[in-house]
Structures are given as C-alpha cells and as structure tokens.
C-alpha cells in the first residue's frame, strides 16, 4: 500500500473547517448533545441496573467475538431451520452480488437504516442494477433526496434543519411544503406508505442476532422497519457477523444496553424476526407468506471483520453496539458532526474505516483527527479503548504492520 496522503488530508481538512463554521451543524449538535446527556442520565436513574447489564454485555460480546466462527455456523443453521435462507458474504462485492441476485431487476425496494448498508453502498448498487430503492428511515430519506451522507449513525440528518427539509421536500413533491416538522413527517408517511405495499422487497439490518433461535433483533422508533419487513413479500436481512450472540436471552440484554445508551430510553418497537411469515390455521398445513413475507433471507457479511476479530487489540472494536454515545462526547464531532468520518464516524469510526470501509489510507486523516482525549471511553458501554487503537493504527501508518514495533507487554 502506498499513497500520497497530502491531498487526502487537504480535501478532508477543508471540509472539516467548513463544517466547523456551519451554523446548522452547530445549532443541531449543541441541541443534540444537551438532549443526549439529559435523556441518558434520566434513563440511568430510572433503570439503574443498566451499568451492570452493560458489564454483562461486554462479556457476552467478548465471548461471542472469540467464538464467532461457530456462532455464525449456528446462526446460519437456525435461519435455514426456520425456512429462511442464509448466506455468508466474504467481502463487500460478494454481499452486493448476493443481495442483487435475490432481488433481480426493476423491483421496488424499501430499506431500513443500516450502517452496514452505508459500508456496502447497498442502495446505490441496487439502483445501478435498475431497481427503485427507498430509504424508509425519515433521516435517511431526507439524505437520499439531498444526495448527502449520514452525519450521525442514529440521527443521520442531524445537520439538516426543518427549513432546509421543507425546501428539499417542496422540490421533490412538486408542491409547497411548509417548514413545519409535523407536516414534513406526514408527507413522507403518505409517500412511503404507498411504497411499502407496492414494494417487492424489504431490506433491513439487525442490531443483534441470536444464534440459537436465528432471531434478528431490530430496534427502532419510527415503525418503518415494521412496515418494510412485514409488507413486502420478500425480506432480506443484511447484517455484520459481529452482531451474533449465542442465545436469544443474551440478545435481549445486548438490545437493552444498545437502546439505553442510544438515547431511546424505551424504544417504540423491537422486532424479532426469525423466519418467513407462516400459518397453520387451515388443517394444520403450514403455509408460508400469510400476512408477511413469504421469503426470508439473511446475508451475514464479513468484509474485514474476521481480520479485526483475530487481532488482540482490535477485536474490541467489534463490541461496538452503534449506540452513538461516543459521538456526543467527542469534542471534534461536536464541532464537525459526521465530517469527522468516512462512512463510519468519529474515533471508533476511524478504526472501522481502516478495517472495513476504505483501509488505512482512507482512515489516516480520521486517525490523525482524533484527539486521543479518551472521553469516548468513559461514555462507551463497552469501554472500547479507541485511543489505544488509534495510536496503534498511526504506528502502522508510519511503520507498517511489523509486530515488533508495537507495544510489548514488557520491554524493561
């Protein structure tokens, strides 16, 4: 690998500086940080068992990553046993091809929000293949129309205020949409409701996967996941292999910790989907596709995760629950939002970028943006040591990956 990072750094820095002067970002993030801190501290008081549960989940994740091969095998068997079809995708290209193969051409697809989807550029790929693809998460829908990328993993359109949303919607829907949030929400609801029922395929990811039952656990508030995974005749789950835990019981623990730190307090919806829709109501004959999808596919995506899992220092990055808490506490993120990122955002995002979304070269500017101040570690329910990983990756940028240059357990 080689490259002149100076241009990369230059373009990136300009963008970062521009973002830091963007008043939309400043207003939106200031509000978001304040709200996040208040909601989370409130939730911790109401559910004081959370930190202990987080400690338990840390152990579950550590064990699951160490045992990922076997869990993947088991999860795939469970999905098949439930009359779904399970796939393993080694890399991005393979994942895209599997999904495109299932879908075919000229189909209508509704899609839930997914960081993995961003990693794979899934929507763009399916569109290129001649499909009509709709992001069903409101924030992602706004960005789809704006041709922009997510600035936060949970609130992707965090940087777009209502006035700008009104402009975008007015242009798209061809009629005046006032800068009124309720009306903006309503118009998208009407538009997408039609799409859910016309769609041939619904795509979602999953926050957790239970290997024993093959359950895909999906947390959401809007209800778009419910509709996209229930209304179309085909449901495809595209999920990272790091999301698998051994049992259904454990998946619930992971889910609760995820939503608690993700500022959901209590999420409106948690879906647990293990197979296609079925009924045995007539003569006890099992028939598939009763009210929901007749076909159920799960694509387990590796794309560099196994490499991470096998590295003593970096396997912890796979514990990330994508709650987004670290971003609210990151001083750089607070002034630049997702411009401090490349698909994956913030300090932990620089590590993920290095392994699954562009390599060290794309990650380098991000890695050198991190202040290594360590406040994200305090916030992180998994206590992921981002500064240590950023340090080691900087070392790899400078010195290559020869192990003897890294930190010894004991030199003296």
């Amino acid at each position: 690998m080689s490259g002149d990072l100076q241009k990369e750094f230059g373009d990136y820095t300009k963008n970062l500086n521009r973002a830091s002067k963007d008043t939309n970002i400043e207003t939106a993030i200031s509000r978001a940080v304040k709200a996040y801190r208040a909601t989370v501290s409130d939730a911790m008081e109401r559910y004081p068992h959370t930190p202990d549960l987080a400690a338990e989940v840390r152990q579950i994740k550590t064990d699951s990553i160490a045992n990922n091969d076997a869990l993947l095998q088991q999860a795939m068997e469970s999905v098949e046993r439930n009359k779904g079809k399970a796939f393993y995708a080694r890399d991005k290209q393979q994942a895209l091809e599997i999904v495109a193969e299932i879908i075919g051409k000229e189909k209508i697809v509704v899609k839930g929000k997914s960081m993995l989807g961003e990693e794979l550029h899934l929507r763009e790929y399916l569109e290129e293949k001649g499909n009509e693809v709709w992001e069903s998460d409101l924030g992602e829908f706004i960005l789809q129309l704006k041709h922009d990328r997510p600035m936060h993993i949970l609130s992707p359109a965090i940087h777009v205020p209502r006035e700008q949303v009104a402009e975008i919607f007015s242009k798209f829907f061809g009629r005046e949409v006032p800068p009124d949030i309720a009306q903006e929400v309503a118009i998208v609801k009407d538009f997408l409701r039609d799409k859910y029922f016309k769609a041939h395929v619904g795509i979602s990811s999953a926050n957790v996967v239970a290997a024993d039952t093959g359950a895909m656990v999906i947390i959401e508030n809007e209800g778009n996941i419910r509709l996209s995974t229930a209304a179309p005749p085909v449901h495809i789950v595209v999920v990272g292999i790091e999301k698998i835990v051994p049992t259904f019981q454990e998946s619930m623990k992971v889910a609760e910790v995820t939503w608690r730190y993700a500022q959901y307090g209590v999420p409106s919806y948690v879906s647990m989907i293990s197979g296609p829709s079925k009924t045995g109501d007539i003569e006890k004959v099992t028939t598939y596709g009763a009210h929901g999808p007749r076909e159920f596919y799960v694509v387990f995506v590796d794309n560099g995760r196994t490499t991470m899992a096998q590295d003593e220092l970096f396997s912890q990055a796979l514990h990330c629950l994508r709650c987004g808490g670290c971003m609210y506490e990151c001083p750089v993120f607070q002034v630049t939002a997702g411009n401090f990122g490349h698909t994956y955002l913030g300090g932990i995002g620089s590590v993920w970028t290095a392994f699954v979304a562009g390599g060290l070269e794309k990650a380098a500017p991000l890695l050198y943006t991190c202040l290594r101040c360590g406040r994200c570690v305090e916030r992180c329910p998994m206590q992921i040591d981002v500064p240590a990983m950023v340090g080691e990756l900087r070392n790899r940028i400078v010195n290559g990956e020869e192990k003897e240059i890294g930190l010894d357990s004991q030199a003296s």
Partner: protein
Amino acid sequence: MAVEMKLPPVLDIIRGNIVKHGNPLALKGAEVASWAKRLSLPAQGEILFYTGGEYQLVPFIDSLVKTMTHMDQGGKGFSLMMGVRNILDKAGINAEKIYASVLAKDKERFNNVCYKAAVILQELGYDLCYGGEQELYSGALLYELGYWQDLREYGQKVVQSLKQSGAKTIVCLSPHAAEVFKLVYPKLVKGFQIEVRTFVEMVWEKRDKLPAVKFDDSVVIHDSCRLARELGIDQELRDIMESVGAAVREPMRSRKWTTCCGGPGKLLFPEISHKIADRRIGELEETGAGVILTSCPYCLAALQGGTKEGSETGVEDLIEFLYRGFAV
C-alpha cells in the same frame, strides 16, 4: 508489508526535531534551561526535576501555527507548522524571525513556570537535581503521532540522560511526559526503571505545608485529559486548592468527564483546535470563576489562546497559582 504513505510534512518535521534536537520545535538547550540559572540545581541527586522543555515551548506554538497557517503552502488546507530549524531549508522562512516574533514577556512567563515549580518543590522540602541543557524531551509526541520505531531508539537516549542524574524518582511537570514515561516506556524502551511522579502528586503529599493563596475570587479547575483519565489524578487538585484556601467551582464537564482543550489537534487542524478551545473556555467561564486553572502546558497554551480579548477570566497553571502564596 510496509505501508508507505506520505503524511503531511508537519508530522515528519516534528519527528525530525525531536530525534535530532531533543525538542519538538528544535529549541536550543540553552534556551530551554535558561530559567534555572538563578537556582544552580545540581546535576545529580535523588529526585530529578524534569521539564522536558514543554512549558518553554508553549509561547512558540501559537506563533508558529499562525505563521504556518498563513503560509498554508499550495492551499493544501492544513497547517504546515514546521520545526523552526527546518523551515529554513524547506520553506525559506527565517527561523529567527519567528522566534523574534514571540513576545519577550510570553517567553519569560512560561520559562518562569519551570522556575516557580522548582521553588515550590524546594520550599516543600524536596531536594531536586536537574539535567539543564542536557535534558531531553520525553518523546511523547513520537508516541502520539505513531513514530514508535523512532521512540524505541530515541527513548534509549532519554533513558541514558535520565540515568546520569542517578535519581530514583523523576518529577514531571507535564502530564504528557508522565504518561509516556509511566505507561509507554515500560512497553517500548529497555532499561527504564525510574519512579515517575507528577508535580501535582508531589505537592499533594505535602499540601499541609503550602502557604495560603490570598485570592478573593474562585477558581475553576480544567482537568487535563492525561492527568484525569490516563493518570487518574483529579481529586488531588481539589485537595490542594482546599489547602491553600481557594474556592473551587466545577464546570459542567470535569474530572474523568473533562472536555479536551483541543491542543492535540493544533498541529494538523489549527482551526478545529481553536474552536474546541473556544467551546471549552465557554464551559469554564460559565462557572463565573475568576481564574481557570490547569496543570498541563498544552492545556495552558490552548486555553490561553481560546480566551477572548478583554475577558476577565484569567488562565493560569496550577504552578503559577500556588506560587502566588510564596511570592508574598
């Protein structure tokens, strides 16, 4: 497989300065040690007073960043803050001019921080020795920026120079030096066996001997990230303030939740760094305290740079604040 990537030149220049000149900005030994003339500290002893040249370089940082951002070679967008000695060759800028642009009173202030720290420790009963012009920078930035192979080699030189003092304990003024000695050297550099202490810990142990500081207003403590999170030192600062009779106010984010001053971003992203400092100043000023106290040369530089002109809130290092009690 070796990764060959061309990083922004500033990083390599900082690295070169450290490795060649024993200081990130290639300050001369005589300049770094000038504060000690009045004290004639011995070169050998039990406790080695270690500045690492860090407070001494504080006044040069902003001036350099300003010059280099202005220069902004080829519109690349990032600051090419180069080490002074190298600028001569690489960019044709006169190094002495940049040094000359640093105000004498700023140089004096930060050199004085070292002097004041030594006096305070002596007054508390510690016998100090000091490496003088031979003292080398810890190499913390080599660690920070990924130059670990260089640190392995450079660290050997540092260890040799520390050994010459014969000291059993090293007292670091900068938490960055303390961190790299305490947490990184044992994993990268052979033969490092000196006990590492921070100025704060040494003072805390003898805080009952500190003279009171007459100060009518209150102070707000800005915990440095390294001190609070890596080294676990935060309550000590509050205890010390109690001992000298100063009222402490707490900002919205403090101790393990402290907000970074933005300092680490200064080399590559000066604008972002400045913005972060600005916001942190805002959090600290919200408390209404008269003085912002910190205990890290980079926090001091960043926060000082973040205060608005005409602001009534001063920024002081803990060392400067405590010295008020001795200066009466």
